[in-house]
Structure formats: C-alpha cells, structure tokens
C-alpha cells in the first residue's frame, strides 16, 4: 500500500511517534518495545510493520532476536520537507521588505 510508505502518514500516529523516540537511543526487540506500551502486542507489531515499511525503522537480526533501530536519514527527510517552502516565502518576504523600504523613502 502506497500510503504506508509515506513517512508523514507514519508519524501521524502518537504511538508510532513514541516508538521512534523509544528506539532513538538504542536498538530494541519488538518484545522490549511492546513492554513500554499498554496496547496489545499485535497492535505494536502492526505499528512496527508500518514504521519499517516506510523505512523509519530498520530491522537487524542478532542471534535469534531481531532488533529495531532508527533510520536517521529518513527522519531528516521529515525535517527537510518544509525547508524549500520556507525558503520560498523567505525570499518573497525579503523582497517585500526591500520594495516597501524603497517605497517609504520615495513617498
């Protein structure tokens, strides 16, 4: 499903944001992650699946366990997504400021 691969869709859910914060400092197994939440284990698994599908989390096998860790590059994508839009408006407002300063001195 295309929707799930969208990082913005993934972080729209508060539980998924909490999972991301949890694994930000250290990798964890699904069991350890689930133990931090009151929700049922399958619900947490579903969230993990969505986060993995959109590449915010990566799975790494270690012995018989699978550890989840954060993919910082994908997180950066979120931070970067409004940057061009911000630049666009900043340039435009800078122009406004200079046009009106000019206008003021003339008028």
């Amino acid at each position, binding site marked *: 499903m295309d929707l799930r691969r969208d990082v*913005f869709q993934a*972080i*729209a859910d508060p539980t998924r944001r909490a999972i991301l914060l949890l694994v930000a400092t250290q990798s964890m197994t699904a069991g350890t992650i689930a133990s931090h939440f009151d929700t049922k284990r399958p619900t947490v698994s579903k969230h993990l699946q969505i986060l993995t599908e959109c590449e915010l989390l990566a799975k790494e096998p270690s012995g018989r366990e699978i550890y989840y860790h954060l993919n910082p590059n994908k997180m950066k994508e*979120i931070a970067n*997504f*409004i940057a*061009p*839009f*911000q*630049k*666009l*408006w*900043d*340039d*435009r*407002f*800078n*122009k*406004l*400021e200079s*046009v*009106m*300063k000019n*206008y*003021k001195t003339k008028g």
Partner: protein
Amino acid sequence: MELKTKIHAEDGKQELTIEREFDLPASLVFKAHTEPELIEQWMGNKVLKFEAKNHGGWIFETKNADGVVLFRANGVLHDIVPNERFTRTFEMENTGFFPQLEFFEFQEISETKSKLVMHIIYKSVEQRDKILKMPFAQGINMAHNQLEQVVKNK
C-alpha cells in the same frame, strides 16, 4: 543563514502557519498586500484583478516571454480591516489542488516593526503535505523570474 520566515506544520494537521517579522510598520506590510502595483513588485506576478474590499475578487497571473501562462491563481477577499487583517481564498488554476482558506494578520510590534501571521487551511492533511512537498507552481514561477533577471543582467 537562518531564515526569518517561520513555518509551523504539525504532522497530521490540515493547516499551517507562516510567520514573519518585518522592519516595517504594519500599515506598509498591509499596503504591500493590497495595492496591485506593490503586489506585482514583490510577488513577481501580474495582478489582473484586485478588489480590496469584502467580497472582492482577485486574480494573479504569470506568463513567460512567449505569453504562455505559467501560473494563475484567484480567490475572494473577506473581512478586510485596513492595516490589521484580511481573509482570502486562494486557488491555483489547472493544478488539481483544492482552494485553500488564508487568514492574514498584520500585528504591530512598534512604530517601525511588525509581524505578519498567515494561517492557511487546506481541504485535507494530504493536500497540505502535497503542497508542502513540492514548492510548486509558485516556486517554478519564482525560479523562472530569477532566471529572467539573471539573463537580462548579462
């Protein structure tokens, strides 16, 4: 360099706010948004129509050197209080984006400083994110204008 314009876009919401402080009184920032000659100077569009009154309509347009329309947007104005605020709808033509609702507030900080707060509401979260992700027709329009300037200066 840090950008002076702040954009707040919380995830999962169909709105965003754009804030900017100017070294200008609120009255001049308002004027820059409501007088066609001034709008043209900083927005880089042609203003085909601008009725600065309640229920007044507006149309902006940008064409390339060959007369091809690159960008055209229109809307209606509401709730105009000179030097303080107005509300407008904004629709980009032929893009598939739905119209958006925009609240403009011109806040006076001092005699020489002011703050503009734009609150924009989109039809859905998806629409907002789509628009944010591709700084879109207006970006292309602006890039084109800059290109034209650069070429002209040579």
